[in-house]
């Protein structure tokens, strides 16, 4: 880790946002000019139920310090009726799995953000950046060359 990085750690967060609610929410945050940290890289998916655990594991493997999964509010906002429930169960289960791999489960966050909640999106990103700054860089990045 270079001296520069040590001084100011800026986490990289990958955000998987559903097309119908959360991406629109993030868009609203943008057009409303709500300030939030630029640490999040947003990937739009059609539904939070589309987010395969592989996407999340790959994000961590490729150096993400945190992953945000966001979809439509429970119980009945999902455009595809039950995608958000699937996401809820997947993320809950996956959090236990990443913990076993040595990644803090707090690095994987699930939030329900509707199209009208630009302020909530900004608040979630702010909070998440702060939390991950406290946790430090992803342990996968600090891994020394093995054997």
């Amino acid at each position, binding site marked *: 880790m270079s001296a520069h990085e040590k001084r100011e750690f800026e986490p990289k967060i990958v955000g998987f946002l559903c097309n119908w609610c959360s991406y629109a929410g993030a868009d609203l945050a943008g057009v409303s000019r709500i300030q939030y940290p630029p640490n999040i890289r947003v990937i739009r998916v059609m539904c939070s139920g589309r987010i395969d655990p592989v996407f999340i594991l790959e994000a961590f493997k490729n150096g993400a310090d945190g992953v945000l999964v966001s979809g439509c509010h429970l119980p009945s906002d999902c455009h595809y009726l039950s995608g958000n429930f699937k996401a809820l169960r997947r993320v809950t289960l996956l959090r*236990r799995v990443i913990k076993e*791999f040595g990644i803090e489960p707090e690095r994987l966050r699930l939030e329900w953000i509707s199209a009208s909640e630009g302020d909530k999106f900004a608040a979630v990103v702010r909070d998440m950046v702060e939390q991950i700054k406290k946790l430090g860089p992803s342990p996968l990045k*600090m*891994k020394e060359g*093995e*054997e």
Partner: protein
Amino acid sequence: MSKEKLKIAFYWAASCGGCEIAVLDINEKILDVVQIADIVFWPVAMDVKYKDVENMPDKHIDICFFNGGIRNSEQEYMAKLLRQKSKVLVAYGACAHLGGVPGLANLSSKKEIFEKVYLSTPSTVNSEGVVPQPKTKVGEGELEIPEFYDTVRTLDQTVDVDYYVPGCPPAVERTLYAIEALTKDSPPPKGTVLAPPKSVCDECPRKKESKKVSNVYRVYEKIPEPEKCLLEQGFICMGPATRGGCGARCLKANMPCTGCGGPCPNSPEQGAAMISALASILGLEEEKEMYTEEKVEKLVDQIKDPIGTFYMYALPASILRRRVIRQ
């Protein structure tokens, strides 16, 4: 037959030895194999030394069946040597293919494993705290044993591999299929997993009806009904995320699939595929409106040992490969 006899080798790295037995499980068919092939190296059955292999010309062996993962320096050396001496290298069995059960040690580091095994187990008496060292000085000189690695690797993370035979151990029909496929004139393309592309569910004779699981049971907790899908009965069965070719042997014996066949084609990771599949069908009895995040936590709490369940054979081949080692 006018053709010269094939030269076949078998080797055993980080595995239990079951794959060696699986070769013999082909019973009298082994006589057909001996008709077309000479076995030139098989440490478990024949007295051929490493030195003899080192003295072989490159590409001398036609087909080498390599079972076991790579967990120490001796195994790595032999993998590289056999790669050099073989025309075709086959990762035979789950350990060579995916890391296998020994790969679950990737949840610990070398230091943790040595501490547990040589120092802290209740039956251990080791007051001097001796743990294996690659080199030891004794009166007569220096002794050397293989170096133990932190991480178990699959064979193809160590050397280039031509084919894979899945299974723990591979089913008799897989072994026969492999021998047949690799000895005919037009062998399958390099990198082929020598098993059908469909999942274990496709071969499973059990009745599948409603896909919903609200209570999870471990095998000792309940005797399963013989004809109904085990997942529907609440047993975590890796069938949906596991490549078939085994004839669903375990399911026919009333046991859930534990996933030895590895991932289905186009599935980057078996564990993630199963997490995804299981999360889709894990459900509560209540209506959706009653669902809360706390209740889902409780539902998921029923799954004990998620890594041991979803990654029993494929941890070293998974995306993250191992638990992070913290300095």
